[in-house]
């Protein structure tokens, strides 16, 4: 399950599976999303992703994932989860249509989820208050990684 979750997360975040594992948060995020929407919905989401073919990938992602009223909001939440470590409460519409979930409220997954957010490497900064970068490091330009090419638009 963790491998499938990581493959999908790599597509969602434009970070590699190695980088995602490197945050040490993969299992905690999978547990968090399963804890809120239930393992069945997560399987549904990953299954829908895996059915998307290699051709016309971007359209497939839009149609089957982001345009899907049930799966789209969960996928968007996963992107935010990886970037800032916070699960945001799902939209009210979603809860009304698919049923409110007991654990669906806005919460930080863990203390380390903040410092391991992908936001920080994406902007070439360190998380304020954590991972001290050393005195004077601010005199150097931010180390912003190159914008990755979308695997979806490539194919």
């Amino acid at each position, binding site marked *: 399950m963790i491998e499938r979750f990581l493959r999908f997360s790599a597509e969602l975040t434009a970070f*590699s*599976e*190695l*980088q995602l*594992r*490197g*945050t*040490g948060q993969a299992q905690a995020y999978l547990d968090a999303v399963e804890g809120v929407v239930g393992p069945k919905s997560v399987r549904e989401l990953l299954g829908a992703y895996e059915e998307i073919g290699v051709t016309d990938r971007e359209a497939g992602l839009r149609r089957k994932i982001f345009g899907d009223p049930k799966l789209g909001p969960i996928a968007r939440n996963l992107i935010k989860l990886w970037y800032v470590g916070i699960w945001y409460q799902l939209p009210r519409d979603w809860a009304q249509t698919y049923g409110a979930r007991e654990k669906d409220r806005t919460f930080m997954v863990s*203390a*380390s989820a903040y410092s391991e957010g992908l936001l920080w490497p994406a902007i070439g900064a360190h998380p304020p208050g954590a*991972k*001290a*970068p*050393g*005195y*004077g*490091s601010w005199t*150097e330009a931010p180390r912003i990684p190159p914008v990755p090419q979308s695997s979806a638009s490539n194919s």
Partner: protein
Amino acid sequence: MTTTIITTVDRLKEYLHRAMQLEHATIPPYLTALYSIHPGTNSDAYHILRVVVVEEMLHLTIAANLLSSITCPNDNGTRPYDKGPNLLAEGFVPAYPAYLPDGERDFQVHLERFSESAIDTFLKIERPASAPDESKRLIKRKAGSAQYLVACPEDEEKQYYSIGEFYEEIARGFKYLYEEKGPSLFCGDPKRQVTSEYYYSGGGELHPVVCMDSAQRAIDLIIGQGEGRGGGIYNKERELAHFYRFDQLRLGKYYRAGDKPDEPTGPELHVDWNAVFPIHKDTTLSDYGESSELSEAAKAFNRSYGRFLADLNEAYNGAPEKLLEVVPRMFRLRDQILQLMHNPLPGTEGQNAAPTFEVA
């Protein structure tokens, strides 16, 4: 009857180069154990390891200062360290597992996860023992052993009883040569001394080595912080010696001032040996198999480490302000190590990747 082995400046330089090599050689094993601890867990162990590794970095810098203090600007020697500290000399970074001195029996130092066996090795590295008598200070090596870091430079067949004994020899060498040459022994350019203004939160004060007094104090600090001295577990600065810091992890209890070795009476100390990444022991690039994103990350770490040593070398050779730039690089090394350790190593049974410290 005391015999001085170091009777020439050339030999003293050779010993100081070895001292730098030795101090550095402890850093990859300590860093590997330190970062293998799951972030946010095992805070007692994490802090003990961190203090020790930071002090080893201080000792490396002190050894560099000692070498610089006796390196005359016009030295024409051709050995890699004749013109000053050289972290880039061939073989400076050992191939692990590597040998360090251990009295009668040999042991190897590994790159391995935080574990009881790692702590046992660390205790051997920092062993406080003085040789029982003068004749035992130098020990004949066992045949067939591999690389030694504190082998006696002029006789590769012999090694020192402990790191403390090795530094005692250096102190004797300084005294002998000072008696012969007087203040001209310290012919090094004082601007090459790395001092505390370039070095912060680094485990102690860095004083310039410019005379016999400062040389002796520098050596005393290394011996006192490392292995302890004269049977005491605390040094003059009331810091616990490294050996006893590690000993606390073995015994599950903190030492307090006034305690005797093996009998700590301080608070309990909790160690969770399982809250550790299952990293592969003594990983080399060949363990990474075919080229992959993971093997590239391992190589990228080695390149970063090599650049870090090169920058440090510049700092030790007349550009001490460079140290301030090196510190942020050290934090990035930490992030690279953690990324590797979070990832499974293909071809192993549930083991994770680890930095290999193979510097080209």
